[in-house]
């Protein structure tokens, strides 16, 4: 019997990788970045101009429209700092400051990152365990699922200080109380995604296992778990971003002295908007890198599993 054609035609017509990257990724992203920067620059002038004009008038400094315009981008404590001020601050607090310094964003970032990662690891594990229990027990499905959903309706800002206080009271200090809040936020997407994933095998695939008289643990390891892997990674991407939010939120109301959240809080106490924005950008950057790492893991695992992406 003749074998049907197999050659993946798309590989023949694939353009050069760099050109492909530029066309499919870089150009669209850069366009959006440029548009955002334009909006930001316009907003900087519009938000700062009144304050700066007042400052000039109070100091009796003569100004023209041009000097006023330029001055709105150079203020000490602007309403909205300009992009270059934020970039400069980021550069100063990461590259030019030693990482051991309390002024180093790398130092604060690491504090937040470590509790994010610990919280995420616990949250992912907890989510997977809950999902496995829920999929294998009707009772747990009925009894646990509503609580899992309800847990996410409680405002995290309200519960964060209580978790920290309770954890401290029972002798758990340092990294873990903050990590618990990351866990609290990240276990949910993982649990929900894994429940969906573990239930994703269709009737046919399950019947097949039944004809082999497979035990439920064989069905789990050979069918349910591999079928759930793509779902797991999708929810881990959501989970790790939520973990970072959890770690930052945990630092806000609890009097933490270090971490990106503490940096945000200190910035807002002293009206250091440039510091707030640079901490925000550091957090956003960190989130992007974390999600990208999970995405890369996803890609590697998919490739090894032979799943076409």
């Amino acid at each position, binding site marked *: 019997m003749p074998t*049907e054609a197999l050659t993946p035609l798309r590989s023949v017509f694939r353009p050069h990788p760099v050109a492909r990257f530029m066309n499919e990724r870089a150009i669209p992203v850069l366009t959006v970045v440029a548009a955002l920067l334009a909006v930001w620059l316009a907003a900087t002038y519009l938000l700062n101009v009144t304050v700066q004009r007042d400052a000039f008038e109070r100091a009796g400094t003569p100004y023209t429209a041009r000097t006023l315009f330029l001055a709105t981008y150079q203020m000490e404590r602007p309403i909205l700092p300009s992009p270059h001020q934020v970039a400069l601050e980021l550069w100063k607090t990461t590259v030019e400051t030693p990482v051991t310094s309390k002024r180093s964003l790398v130092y604060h970032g690491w504090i937040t990152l470590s509790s994010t990662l610990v919280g995420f690891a616990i949250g992912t594990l907890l989510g997977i365990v809950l999902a496995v229990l829920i999929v294998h027990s009707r009772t747990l499905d009925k009894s646990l699922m509503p609580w899992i959903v309800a847990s996410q309706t409680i405002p995290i800002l309200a519960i964060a200080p209580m978790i920290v206080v309770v954890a401290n009271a029972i002798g758990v200090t340092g990294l873990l109380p903050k990590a618990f809040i990351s866990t609290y936020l990240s276990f949910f997407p993982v649990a929900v995604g894994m429940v969906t994933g573990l239930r994703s095998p269709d009737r*046919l695939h399950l019947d*097949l296992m039944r004809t082999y008289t497979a035990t439920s643990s064989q069905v789990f390891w050979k069918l349910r778990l591999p079928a759930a*892997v793509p779902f797991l990674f999708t929810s881990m991407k959501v989970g790790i971003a939520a973990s970072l939010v959890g770690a930052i939120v945990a630092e806000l109301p609890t009097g933490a002295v270090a971490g990106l959240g503490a940096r945000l809080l200190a910035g807002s106490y002293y009206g250091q908007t440039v510091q707030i924005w640079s901490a925000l950008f550091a957090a956003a950057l960190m989130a992007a890198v974390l999600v990208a790492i999970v995405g890369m893991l996803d890609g590697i695992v998919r490739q090894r599993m*032979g*799943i076409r992406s």
Partner: protein
Amino acid sequence: MATVIPLDTRRQEPRSQDPAMTEARASTRPAVIDIRGLSLTFDTADGPVHALSNVDLSIEKGDFVSFIGPSGCGKTTLLRVIADLEQQTGGTITVNGTTPEKARLNLAYGYVFQAPALYPWRSIAANVALPLEVMGLPKAERIRRVKKNLALVNLVNFEKKFPWQLSGGMQQRASIARALAVEPDLLLMDEPFGALDEIVRDHLNEQLLQLWAKTEKTVVFVTHSIPEAVYLSTKIVVMSPRPGRIHDIVESDLPRGPRLLDIRETPDFLKIAHRVREGLRAGHSYAD
């Protein structure tokens, strides 16, 4: 010589290419599947659905039996009862002389579904090895059986490919290899070629007959194609819907073993096909 003979009266069992050599005789081969007064009623929100009603059927070792009928006639359900994927609500059924459940636990059959149902994260070889892993066979034996059965379905060079890299016909052949890897005496096939185009289907039908002749397995095959049923089978079970039941059982006296596709042009073939078609029509299958 009659082309078609009802099961109930006598059996014809042609063993040679020459129709003159065939002789009517009582069945001496043991029944692999014995079904008596079987019925199955599904309870649905709209009331009970009689999927199967009072089915009597005996399938002997080495038979190639097709269930044919319009959708809703219960042919797939009947196959699933044999496979212990559904349980009857009335009557009795034995598979290999025991209950379907025991037969399933003994891995008495290989089941080929409508869709290939290959696991996308497993290579073709790993897919064929799946039942062998579940059975707990040692690795050397798994490799031996995978090689042997992929060779049977002409997929030797595709072991390392993943399912999406294969055409639909090749995927279904891989799923047949997977069913054969269990080395069952009984092969249950639920419209395995229904989703394929006619040219591929012809090829696979030809290959399936060769395989059947080579391995001497008992095959139960669900289809809604008259030519496919007549071409493949030694016995054709014509079913009709509402309630699902057997309307007619047609014994084919076409030569056993590998048949050429050209047999479909012969008068004998057309006579059997005509009787099957008449059966389907009488069973009101064209009424709606």
